Protein backbone atom coordinates (compact mmCIF):
# COMPACT_ATOMS: atom_id res chain seq x y z
CA UNK A 1 0.00 0.00 0.00
CA UNK A 2 2.80 2.43 0.94
CA UNK A 3 4.65 1.27 -2.15
CA UNK A 4 1.68 2.16 -4.30
CA UNK A 5 1.33 5.58 -2.68
CA UNK A 6 5.04 6.10 -3.28
CA UNK A 7 4.64 5.24 -6.94
CA UNK A 8 1.84 7.75 -7.34
CA UNK A 9 3.94 10.40 -5.61
CA UNK A 10 6.94 9.69 -7.81
CA UNK A 11 4.81 9.90 -10.91
CA UNK A 12 3.48 13.31 -9.87
CA UNK A 13 7.00 14.52 -9.15
CA UNK A 14 8.21 13.26 -12.52
CA UNK A 15 5.35 15.04 -14.29
CA UNK A 16 6.15 18.30 -12.45
CA UNK A 17 9.84 17.91 -13.29
CA UNK A 18 9.15 17.31 -16.97
CA UNK A 19 6.91 20.39 -16.91
CA UNK A 20 9.84 22.40 -15.53
CA UNK A 21 12.12 21.15 -18.27
CA UNK A 22 9.54 21.99 -20.92
CA UNK A 23 9.34 25.50 -19.48
CA UNK A 24 13.15 25.84 -19.60
CA UNK A 25 13.59 24.48 -23.10
CA UNK A 26 10.38 25.30 -25.02
CA UNK A 27 11.28 28.91 -25.91
CA UNK A 28 14.68 27.78 -27.18
CA UNK A 29 13.09 25.06 -29.33
CA UNK A 30 10.56 27.55 -30.73
CA UNK A 31 13.35 29.99 -31.52
CA UNK A 32 15.38 27.39 -33.40
CA UNK A 33 12.31 26.13 -35.26
CA UNK A 34 11.33 29.62 -36.40
CA UNK A 35 14.86 30.39 -37.59
CA UNK A 36 14.15 27.89 -40.41
CA UNK A 37 10.79 29.48 -41.27
CA UNK A 38 10.62 30.82 -44.82
CA UNK A 39 8.09 33.52 -43.84
CA UNK A 40 9.25 37.11 -43.46
CA UNK A 41 6.87 37.67 -40.53
CA UNK A 42 7.50 34.75 -38.25
CA UNK A 43 3.89 34.39 -37.15
CA UNK A 44 2.97 31.42 -39.30
CA UNK A 45 4.93 28.52 -40.72
CA UNK A 46 5.59 28.94 -44.44
CA UNK A 47 7.95 26.06 -45.05
CA UNK A 48 11.56 25.18 -44.32
CA UNK A 49 14.23 27.57 -45.51
CA UNK A 50 17.84 28.47 -44.85
CA UNK A 51 17.49 31.96 -46.30
CA UNK A 52 17.96 33.78 -42.98
CA UNK A 53 21.18 31.88 -42.35
CA UNK A 54 22.37 32.83 -45.83
CA UNK A 55 21.49 36.45 -45.14
CA UNK A 56 23.75 36.32 -42.06
CA UNK A 57 26.79 35.26 -44.07
CA UNK A 58 26.42 38.35 -46.26
CA UNK A 59 26.39 40.69 -43.25
CA UNK A 60 29.85 42.22 -43.01
CA UNK A 61 29.21 44.02 -39.69
CA UNK A 62 28.26 40.68 -38.21
CA UNK A 63 31.63 39.17 -39.08
CA UNK A 64 33.36 42.09 -37.39
CA UNK A 65 31.18 41.53 -34.31
CA UNK A 66 32.09 37.84 -34.32
CA UNK A 67 35.76 38.75 -34.47
CA UNK A 68 35.39 41.19 -31.57
CA UNK A 69 33.48 38.64 -29.50
CA UNK A 70 36.10 35.93 -30.00
CA UNK A 71 38.98 38.31 -29.31
CA UNK A 72 37.42 39.52 -26.05
CA UNK A 73 36.46 35.99 -24.98
CA UNK A 74 39.94 34.56 -25.58
CA UNK A 75 41.77 37.42 -23.88
CA UNK A 76 39.45 37.68 -20.87
CA UNK A 77 39.41 33.89 -20.41
CA UNK A 78 43.22 33.77 -20.42
CA UNK A 79 43.43 36.50 -17.76
CA UNK A 80 40.62 35.02 -15.64
CA UNK A 81 42.06 31.50 -15.79
CA UNK A 82 45.54 32.63 -14.79
CA UNK A 83 44.30 34.80 -11.91
CA UNK A 84 41.49 32.46 -10.84
CA UNK A 85 43.58 29.29 -10.66
CA UNK A 86 46.43 31.01 -8.86
CA UNK A 87 44.03 32.55 -6.35
CA UNK A 88 42.25 29.22 -5.80
CA UNK A 89 45.54 27.55 -4.93
CA UNK A 90 46.51 30.48 -2.71
CA UNK A 91 43.19 30.39 -0.86
CA UNK A 92 43.55 26.69 -0.14
CA UNK A 93 46.79 27.41 1.75
CA UNK A 94 45.39 30.17 3.92
CA UNK A 95 44.31 29.58 7.51
CA UNK A 96 40.61 28.78 7.84
CA UNK A 97 39.44 32.19 9.08
CA UNK A 98 40.96 34.47 6.47
CA UNK A 99 40.00 31.93 3.83
CA UNK A 100 36.31 32.11 4.70
CA UNK A 101 36.33 35.91 4.53
CA UNK A 102 38.07 36.01 1.14
CA UNK A 103 35.81 33.27 -0.21
CA UNK A 104 32.83 35.49 0.52
CA UNK A 105 34.50 38.50 -1.08
CA UNK A 106 35.21 36.60 -4.30
CA UNK A 107 31.58 35.46 -4.49
CA UNK A 108 30.28 39.02 -4.45
CA UNK A 109 30.71 39.65 -8.21
CA UNK A 110 28.72 36.48 -8.95
CA UNK A 111 25.62 37.76 -7.18
CA UNK A 112 26.02 41.49 -7.84
CA UNK A 113 23.32 42.66 -10.28
CA UNK A 114 25.14 42.97 -13.60
CA UNK A 115 23.79 46.42 -14.26
CA UNK A 116 25.66 47.69 -11.17
CA UNK A 117 28.91 46.23 -12.34
CA UNK A 118 28.32 47.72 -15.78
CA UNK A 119 27.66 51.29 -14.63
CA UNK A 120 30.47 51.15 -12.06
CA UNK A 121 33.00 50.12 -14.70
CA UNK A 122 31.67 52.74 -17.11
CA UNK A 123 32.12 55.53 -14.54
CA UNK A 124 35.54 54.22 -13.58
CA UNK A 125 36.83 54.07 -17.16
CA UNK A 126 35.49 57.53 -17.96
CA UNK A 127 37.10 58.89 -14.80
CA UNK A 128 40.55 57.44 -15.49
CA UNK A 129 40.09 58.55 -19.13
CA UNK A 130 40.57 55.10 -20.61
CA UNK A 131 38.75 55.17 -23.97
CA UNK A 132 35.91 52.65 -24.19
CA UNK A 133 36.61 49.80 -26.59
CA UNK A 134 37.85 46.24 -26.85
CA UNK A 135 40.29 46.76 -23.97
CA UNK A 136 37.70 48.03 -21.49
CA UNK A 137 35.26 45.22 -22.38
CA UNK A 138 38.02 42.64 -21.92
CA UNK A 139 38.92 44.06 -18.51
CA UNK A 140 35.27 43.94 -17.43
CA UNK A 141 34.80 40.36 -18.62
CA UNK A 142 37.96 39.23 -16.85
CA UNK A 143 36.60 40.82 -13.66
CA UNK A 144 33.38 38.78 -13.65
CA UNK A 145 35.16 35.64 -14.86
CA UNK A 146 37.84 35.46 -12.14
CA UNK A 147 35.21 34.32 -9.57
CA UNK A 148 33.72 31.83 -12.07
CA UNK A 149 37.11 30.10 -12.52
CA UNK A 150 37.93 30.43 -8.84
CA UNK A 151 34.72 28.78 -7.61
CA UNK A 152 35.04 25.76 -9.91
CA UNK A 153 38.76 25.18 -9.29
CA UNK A 154 38.31 25.69 -5.53
CA UNK A 155 35.55 23.07 -5.40
CA UNK A 156 37.86 20.56 -7.06
CA UNK A 157 40.85 21.51 -4.93
CA UNK A 158 38.91 20.89 -1.74
CA UNK A 159 38.21 17.32 -2.78
CA UNK A 160 41.89 16.57 -3.45
CA UNK A 161 43.83 14.64 -0.84
CA UNK A 162 46.47 17.02 0.58
CA UNK A 163 48.64 14.05 1.56
CA UNK A 164 49.51 13.52 -2.11
CA UNK A 165 51.38 16.80 -2.35
CA UNK A 166 52.84 16.28 1.13
CA UNK A 167 54.16 12.89 0.04
CA UNK A 168 55.91 14.49 -2.92
CA UNK A 169 57.43 17.07 -0.57
CA UNK A 170 58.59 14.36 1.85
CA UNK A 171 60.30 12.63 -1.07
CA UNK A 172 62.30 15.79 -1.65
CA UNK A 173 60.32 17.64 -4.32
CA UNK A 174 60.46 21.44 -4.18
CA UNK A 175 57.07 23.09 -3.48
CA UNK A 176 56.77 24.24 -7.09
CA UNK A 177 57.71 20.82 -8.45
CA UNK A 178 55.27 19.06 -6.11
CA UNK A 179 52.54 21.41 -7.26
CA UNK A 180 53.36 21.09 -10.95
CA UNK A 181 53.77 17.32 -11.00
CA UNK A 182 51.09 16.28 -8.50
CA UNK A 183 48.39 18.90 -7.90
CA UNK A 184 48.25 20.56 -11.31
CA UNK A 185 47.59 17.34 -13.29
CA UNK A 186 44.79 16.47 -10.86
CA UNK A 187 43.32 19.95 -11.28
CA UNK A 188 43.66 19.86 -15.08
CA UNK A 189 40.10 18.93 -16.02
CA UNK A 190 38.62 21.44 -13.54
CA UNK A 191 40.82 24.18 -15.02
CA UNK A 192 39.88 23.29 -18.60
CA UNK A 193 36.18 23.02 -17.67
CA UNK A 194 36.31 26.35 -15.86
CA UNK A 195 37.98 28.16 -18.75
CA UNK A 196 35.50 26.75 -21.28
CA UNK A 197 32.73 28.07 -19.04
CA UNK A 198 34.44 31.47 -18.64
CA UNK A 199 34.84 31.65 -22.42
CA UNK A 200 31.11 30.97 -22.85
CA UNK A 201 30.09 33.52 -20.23
CA UNK A 202 32.22 36.16 -21.96
CA UNK A 203 30.85 35.26 -25.39
CA UNK A 204 27.29 35.54 -24.04
CA UNK A 205 27.59 38.62 -21.87
CA UNK A 206 25.38 41.52 -22.75
CA UNK A 207 24.97 43.88 -19.79
CA UNK A 208 28.59 44.58 -18.80
CA UNK A 209 29.55 44.75 -22.49
CA UNK A 210 26.70 47.17 -23.19
CA UNK A 211 28.09 49.68 -20.69
CA UNK A 212 31.82 49.25 -21.34
CA UNK A 213 31.94 48.96 -25.15
CA UNK A 214 32.53 52.08 -27.17
CA UNK A 215 31.12 52.41 -30.66
CA UNK A 216 34.00 50.39 -32.13
CA UNK A 217 33.64 47.30 -29.98
CA UNK A 218 30.32 45.77 -31.05
CA UNK A 219 30.05 42.13 -30.00
CA UNK A 220 27.54 39.50 -31.12
CA UNK A 221 25.15 40.00 -28.17
CA UNK A 222 25.26 43.79 -28.73
CA UNK A 223 24.44 43.15 -32.38
CA UNK A 224 21.52 40.90 -31.44
CA UNK A 225 20.28 43.58 -29.02
CA UNK A 226 20.36 46.34 -31.61
CA UNK A 227 18.57 44.05 -34.10
CA UNK A 228 15.85 43.37 -31.50
CA UNK A 229 15.48 47.07 -30.73
CA UNK A 230 15.32 48.21 -34.36
CA UNK A 231 12.52 45.81 -35.17
CA UNK A 232 12.05 42.09 -35.36
CA UNK A 233 13.72 40.77 -38.49
CA UNK A 234 13.83 37.04 -39.10
CA UNK A 235 17.61 37.18 -39.26
CA UNK A 236 17.70 37.61 -35.47
CA UNK A 237 16.16 34.17 -35.07
CA UNK A 238 18.93 32.63 -37.15
CA UNK A 239 21.69 34.50 -35.34
CA UNK A 240 20.11 33.78 -31.93
CA UNK A 241 19.74 30.10 -32.77
CA UNK A 242 23.44 29.89 -33.64
CA UNK A 243 24.45 31.71 -30.45
CA UNK A 244 22.22 29.66 -28.17
CA UNK A 245 23.31 26.33 -29.68
CA UNK A 246 26.99 27.33 -29.56
CA UNK A 247 26.83 28.30 -25.91
CA UNK A 248 24.72 25.29 -24.92
CA UNK A 249 27.30 23.08 -26.63
CA UNK A 250 30.17 24.78 -24.84
CA UNK A 251 28.46 24.56 -21.44
CA UNK A 252 27.67 20.88 -21.98
CA UNK A 253 31.33 20.35 -22.94
CA UNK A 254 32.51 22.13 -19.80
CA UNK A 255 30.18 20.07 -17.58
CA UNK A 256 31.26 16.85 -19.30
CA UNK A 257 34.94 17.62 -18.73
CA UNK A 258 34.33 18.34 -15.04
CA UNK A 259 32.00 15.36 -14.63
CA UNK A 260 34.28 12.78 -16.23
CA UNK A 261 36.96 13.30 -13.68
CA UNK A 262 34.52 13.03 -10.81
CA UNK A 263 33.34 9.68 -12.13
CA UNK A 264 36.84 8.35 -12.74
CA UNK A 265 37.80 8.88 -9.12
Amino acid at each position, binding site marked *: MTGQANDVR*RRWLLAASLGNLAFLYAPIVVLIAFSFNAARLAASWQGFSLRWYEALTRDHALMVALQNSLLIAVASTAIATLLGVSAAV*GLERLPQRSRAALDGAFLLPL*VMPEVMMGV*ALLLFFVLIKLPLGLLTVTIGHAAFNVPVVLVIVRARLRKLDPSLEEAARDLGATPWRAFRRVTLPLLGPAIVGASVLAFTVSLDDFVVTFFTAGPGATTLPLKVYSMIKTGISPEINALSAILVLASMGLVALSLAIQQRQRLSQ
Partner: protein
Amino acid sequence: MTGRPVHHTIARQSAWLLAPALVWMGVFFLLPLLVVFLISFASRGAYGGVEWTFTLANYRDLADPLYLYVYARSFGLALATTAFCLCLGFPLAYYIAKAPARWQGIWLALVLIPFWTNFLVRTYAWINVLRADGLLNALLMALGIISEPIDILYSDLAVLIGLVYGYLPFMVLPLYAAIERLDDSLVDAARDLYASGWAVLTRVIVPLTKPGIVAGCLLVFIPSLGAYITPDLLGGARSMMIGTFIQHEYLVVRDWPLGSAASFVLMAMVVAGLWGYQRAGGERPL
Protein backbone atom coordinates in the same frame (compact mmCIF):
# COMPACT_ATOMS: atom_id res chain seq x y z
CA MET B 1 60.38 20.19 12.14
CA THR B 2 59.63 23.61 13.60
CA GLY B 3 56.16 24.75 12.77
CA ARG B 4 56.76 28.46 12.51
CA PRO B 5 59.07 28.96 9.55
CA VAL B 6 57.02 26.50 7.46
CA HIS B 7 53.90 28.38 8.39
CA HIS B 8 55.51 31.64 7.33
CA THR B 9 56.64 30.35 3.93
CA ILE B 10 53.17 28.98 3.29
CA ALA B 11 51.59 32.31 4.26
CA ARG B 12 54.01 34.16 1.98
CA GLN B 13 53.35 31.75 -0.86
CA SER B 14 49.62 32.11 -0.64
CA ALA B 15 49.96 35.88 -0.52
CA TRP B 16 51.86 35.85 -3.81
CA LEU B 17 49.37 33.47 -5.38
CA LEU B 18 46.43 35.57 -4.27
CA ALA B 19 47.90 38.97 -5.06
CA PRO B 20 47.19 39.16 -8.83
CA ALA B 21 43.51 38.25 -8.46
CA LEU B 22 43.09 40.51 -5.44
CA VAL B 23 44.68 43.45 -7.26
CA TRP B 24 42.56 42.86 -10.37
CA MET B 25 39.31 42.58 -8.42
CA GLY B 26 40.32 45.49 -6.20
CA VAL B 27 40.98 47.80 -9.14
CA PHE B 28 38.27 46.66 -11.53
CA PHE B 29 35.50 45.67 -9.13
CA LEU B 30 35.79 47.32 -5.70
CA LEU B 31 37.28 50.62 -6.84
CA PRO B 32 34.56 51.23 -9.47
CA LEU B 33 31.92 50.50 -6.80
CA LEU B 34 33.65 53.01 -4.55
CA VAL B 35 33.51 55.56 -7.39
CA VAL B 36 29.75 54.96 -7.70
CA PHE B 37 29.41 55.47 -3.96
CA LEU B 38 31.34 58.78 -4.06
CA ILE B 39 29.48 60.10 -7.09
CA SER B 40 26.17 59.39 -5.40
CA PHE B 41 27.02 62.33 -3.09
CA ALA B 42 28.09 64.65 -5.93
CA SER B 43 25.79 66.79 -8.00
CA ARG B 44 25.05 66.87 -11.66
CA GLY B 45 27.07 69.28 -13.78
CA ALA B 46 25.54 71.62 -16.32
CA TYR B 47 26.27 69.33 -19.28
CA GLY B 48 25.63 65.97 -17.67
CA GLY B 49 29.04 65.68 -16.03
CA VAL B 50 29.75 65.48 -12.33
CA GLU B 51 30.35 68.36 -9.94
CA TRP B 52 32.24 67.30 -6.85
CA THR B 53 30.19 68.67 -4.02
CA PHE B 54 28.94 66.82 -0.98
CA THR B 55 25.19 66.55 -0.94
CA LEU B 56 22.49 64.14 0.12
CA ALA B 57 20.14 65.58 -2.49
CA ASN B 58 20.32 62.51 -4.73
CA TYR B 59 19.14 60.22 -1.99
CA ARG B 60 16.42 62.74 -1.11
CA ASP B 61 15.36 62.83 -4.78
CA LEU B 62 15.02 59.06 -4.77
CA ALA B 63 12.27 59.42 -2.18
CA ASP B 64 10.11 60.98 -4.92
CA PRO B 65 6.88 58.94 -5.25
CA LEU B 66 7.68 58.31 -8.92
CA TYR B 67 10.96 56.58 -8.04
CA LEU B 68 9.55 54.88 -4.97
CA TYR B 69 6.99 53.35 -7.27
CA VAL B 70 9.80 51.88 -9.41
CA TYR B 71 11.40 50.40 -6.30
CA ALA B 72 8.10 49.05 -5.04
CA ARG B 73 7.23 47.36 -8.34
CA SER B 74 10.74 45.86 -8.58
CA PHE B 75 10.35 44.55 -5.06
CA GLY B 76 6.92 43.12 -5.84
CA LEU B 77 8.05 41.49 -9.08
CA ALA B 78 11.15 40.04 -7.42
CA LEU B 79 9.01 38.67 -4.59
CA ALA B 80 6.50 37.10 -7.00
CA THR B 81 9.39 35.65 -9.05
CA THR B 82 10.84 34.09 -5.90
CA ALA B 83 7.49 32.56 -4.91
CA PHE B 84 6.88 31.06 -8.36
CA CYS B 85 10.43 29.72 -8.60
CA LEU B 86 10.03 28.05 -5.20
CA CYS B 87 6.72 26.41 -6.14
CA LEU B 88 8.02 25.24 -9.53
CA GLY B 89 11.53 24.36 -8.42
CA PHE B 90 10.77 22.39 -5.27
CA PRO B 91 9.18 19.32 -6.94
CA LEU B 92 11.94 19.32 -9.56
CA ALA B 93 14.70 19.53 -6.95
CA TYR B 94 12.98 16.81 -4.90
CA TYR B 95 12.68 14.54 -7.88
CA ILE B 96 16.35 15.00 -8.84
CA ALA B 97 17.60 14.52 -5.28
CA LYS B 98 15.73 11.23 -4.90
CA ALA B 99 16.55 9.90 -8.38
CA PRO B 100 19.22 7.20 -8.89
CA ALA B 101 22.76 8.70 -8.85
CA ARG B 102 23.24 8.10 -12.58
CA TRP B 103 20.19 10.17 -13.45
CA GLN B 104 20.97 12.95 -11.00
CA GLY B 105 23.97 14.06 -13.06
CA ILE B 106 21.91 14.17 -16.25
CA TRP B 107 19.01 16.08 -14.68
CA LEU B 108 21.36 18.56 -13.03
CA ALA B 109 23.14 19.12 -16.34
CA LEU B 110 19.76 19.75 -18.00
CA VAL B 111 19.01 22.43 -15.39
CA LEU B 112 22.51 23.93 -15.51
CA ILE B 113 22.86 24.20 -19.30
CA PRO B 114 20.22 26.91 -19.82
CA PHE B 115 21.48 28.63 -16.66
CA TRP B 116 24.88 29.32 -18.26
CA THR B 117 23.46 29.91 -21.75
CA ASN B 118 23.11 33.33 -23.37
CA PHE B 119 20.55 35.17 -21.22
CA LEU B 120 19.81 37.88 -23.78
CA VAL B 121 18.94 35.35 -26.47
CA ARG B 122 16.90 33.19 -24.09
CA THR B 123 14.90 36.24 -23.06
CA TYR B 124 14.44 37.28 -26.68
CA ALA B 125 13.13 33.77 -27.39
CA TRP B 126 10.08 34.59 -25.24
CA ILE B 127 9.11 37.42 -27.60
CA ASN B 128 8.29 34.80 -30.26
CA VAL B 129 6.16 32.94 -27.74
CA LEU B 130 4.34 35.86 -26.11
CA ARG B 131 3.61 38.13 -29.10
CA ALA B 132 -0.03 38.83 -29.98
CA ASP B 133 0.42 36.54 -33.00
CA GLY B 134 2.80 34.32 -31.06
CA LEU B 135 2.67 30.71 -30.05
CA LEU B 136 1.04 31.08 -26.63
CA ASN B 137 -1.94 33.01 -28.00
CA ALA B 138 -2.31 30.54 -30.87
CA LEU B 139 -2.26 27.69 -28.35
CA LEU B 140 -4.78 29.31 -26.00
CA MET B 141 -7.12 30.08 -28.91
CA ALA B 142 -6.81 26.56 -30.33
CA LEU B 143 -7.77 25.21 -26.91
CA GLY B 144 -10.74 27.56 -26.86
CA ILE B 145 -9.60 29.25 -23.64
CA ILE B 146 -9.63 32.69 -25.25
CA SER B 147 -11.45 33.89 -28.34
CA GLU B 148 -9.06 36.63 -29.43
CA PRO B 149 -5.36 37.28 -28.80
CA ILE B 150 -4.51 38.83 -25.44
CA ASP B 151 -1.63 41.25 -24.94
CA ILE B 152 0.92 39.48 -22.80
CA LEU B 153 4.13 40.85 -24.28
CA TYR B 154 5.31 44.21 -22.92
CA SER B 155 3.47 43.79 -19.62
CA ASP B 156 4.30 42.95 -16.02
CA LEU B 157 3.11 39.41 -16.64
CA ALA B 158 5.68 39.02 -19.44
CA VAL B 159 8.43 40.36 -17.15
CA LEU B 160 7.35 37.93 -14.43
CA ILE B 161 7.43 34.98 -16.84
CA GLY B 162 10.87 36.04 -18.10
CA LEU B 163 12.26 36.43 -14.58
CA VAL B 164 10.92 33.07 -13.37
CA TYR B 165 12.33 31.46 -16.49
CA GLY B 166 15.71 33.13 -16.10
CA TYR B 167 16.29 32.45 -12.41
CA LEU B 168 14.60 29.07 -11.86
CA PRO B 169 17.97 27.21 -11.90
CA PHE B 170 19.21 29.48 -9.06
CA MET B 171 16.39 28.02 -6.96
CA VAL B 172 16.77 24.39 -7.99
CA LEU B 173 20.48 24.00 -7.23
CA PRO B 174 20.51 24.91 -3.51
CA LEU B 175 17.18 23.12 -2.99
CA TYR B 176 18.66 19.99 -4.54
CA ALA B 177 21.69 20.18 -2.26
CA ALA B 178 19.45 20.47 0.82
CA ILE B 179 16.97 17.77 -0.18
CA GLU B 180 19.74 15.35 -1.09
CA ARG B 181 20.86 15.42 2.55
CA LEU B 182 17.31 14.91 3.84
CA ASP B 183 17.02 11.65 5.75
CA ASP B 184 14.25 9.63 4.08
CA SER B 185 13.55 7.61 7.19
CA LEU B 186 12.19 10.75 8.89
CA VAL B 187 9.73 11.27 6.05
CA ASP B 188 8.77 7.58 6.16
CA ALA B 189 8.33 7.73 9.93
CA ALA B 190 5.93 10.65 9.59
CA ARG B 191 3.94 8.75 6.97
CA ASP B 192 3.88 5.60 9.11
CA LEU B 193 2.42 7.70 11.89
CA TYR B 194 -0.41 8.70 9.52
CA ALA B 195 0.65 12.27 8.83
CA SER B 196 -1.19 13.68 5.82
CA GLY B 197 0.81 14.57 2.71
CA TRP B 198 0.51 18.25 3.57
CA ALA B 199 1.65 17.69 7.14
CA VAL B 200 4.67 15.69 5.96
CA LEU B 201 5.61 18.53 3.64
CA THR B 202 5.10 21.43 6.06
CA ARG B 203 6.11 19.74 9.32
CA VAL B 204 8.98 17.51 8.18
CA ILE B 205 10.37 18.25 4.71
CA VAL B 206 10.25 22.05 4.75
CA PRO B 207 11.81 22.53 8.23
CA LEU B 208 14.60 20.05 7.41
CA THR B 209 15.44 21.69 4.07
CA LYS B 210 15.07 25.26 5.30
CA PRO B 211 18.69 26.33 4.64
CA GLY B 212 18.28 25.31 1.00
CA ILE B 213 14.97 27.14 0.73
CA VAL B 214 16.42 30.34 2.21
CA ALA B 215 19.47 30.11 -0.06
CA GLY B 216 17.39 29.50 -3.17
CA CYS B 217 14.99 32.34 -2.37
CA LEU B 218 17.79 34.86 -1.87
CA LEU B 219 19.66 33.71 -4.97
CA VAL B 220 16.51 34.29 -7.01
CA PHE B 221 15.40 37.46 -5.25
CA ILE B 222 18.69 39.37 -5.56
CA PRO B 223 19.22 39.14 -9.34
CA SER B 224 15.47 39.57 -9.99
CA LEU B 225 15.52 42.82 -8.05
CA GLY B 226 18.35 44.21 -10.17
CA ALA B 227 17.31 42.60 -13.47
CA TYR B 228 17.97 44.64 -16.57
CA ILE B 229 17.52 42.56 -19.72
CA THR B 230 14.13 41.07 -18.79
CA PRO B 231 12.21 44.31 -18.07
CA ASP B 232 14.01 46.01 -20.97
CA LEU B 233 12.97 43.41 -23.56
CA LEU B 234 9.69 42.03 -22.23
CA GLY B 235 8.35 44.94 -20.18
CA GLY B 236 6.32 47.82 -21.54
CA ALA B 237 7.36 51.46 -21.61
CA ARG B 238 5.88 51.90 -18.15
CA SER B 239 7.17 48.71 -16.54
CA MET B 240 10.46 50.17 -15.39
CA MET B 241 12.42 48.26 -12.77
CA ILE B 242 15.43 49.38 -10.73
CA GLY B 243 17.86 48.00 -13.33
CA THR B 244 16.26 49.80 -16.26
CA PHE B 245 15.86 52.93 -14.14
CA ILE B 246 19.60 53.00 -13.38
CA GLN B 247 20.47 52.49 -17.05
CA HIS B 248 18.01 55.26 -18.00
CA GLU B 249 19.57 57.72 -15.53
CA TYR B 250 23.10 56.96 -16.73
CA LEU B 251 22.73 56.73 -20.49
CA VAL B 252 19.55 58.65 -21.36
CA VAL B 253 19.12 61.39 -18.76
CA ARG B 254 22.86 61.40 -18.05
CA ASP B 255 22.27 62.21 -14.39
CA TRP B 256 25.16 60.19 -13.03
CA PRO B 257 24.82 61.22 -9.38
CA LEU B 258 21.15 60.21 -9.23
CA GLY B 259 21.90 56.96 -11.11
CA SER B 260 24.73 56.29 -8.66
CA ALA B 261 22.48 56.88 -5.65
CA ALA B 262 19.91 54.47 -7.15
CA SER B 263 22.70 51.91 -7.73
CA PHE B 264 23.79 52.24 -4.18
CA VAL B 265 20.35 51.69 -2.75
CA LEU B 266 20.19 48.52 -4.87
CA MET B 267 23.62 47.51 -3.65
CA ALA B 268 22.54 48.02 -0.03
CA MET B 269 19.56 45.73 -0.65
CA VAL B 270 21.86 43.10 -2.18
CA VAL B 271 24.30 43.25 0.72
CA ALA B 272 21.43 43.03 3.21
CA GLY B 273 20.17 39.96 1.35
CA LEU B 274 23.62 38.35 1.40
CA TRP B 275 23.99 39.10 5.07
CA GLY B 276 20.69 37.35 5.73
CA TYR B 277 21.91 34.46 3.59
CA GLN B 278 25.08 34.07 5.64
CA ARG B 279 23.15 34.32 8.89
CA ALA B 280 20.78 31.62 7.74
CA GLY B 281 23.87 29.41 7.42
CA GLY B 282 23.79 29.60 3.64
CA GLU B 283 26.23 27.70 1.52
CA ARG B 284 27.99 28.58 -1.69
CA PRO B 285 25.55 28.80 -4.57
CA LEU B 286 27.40 26.90 -7.30
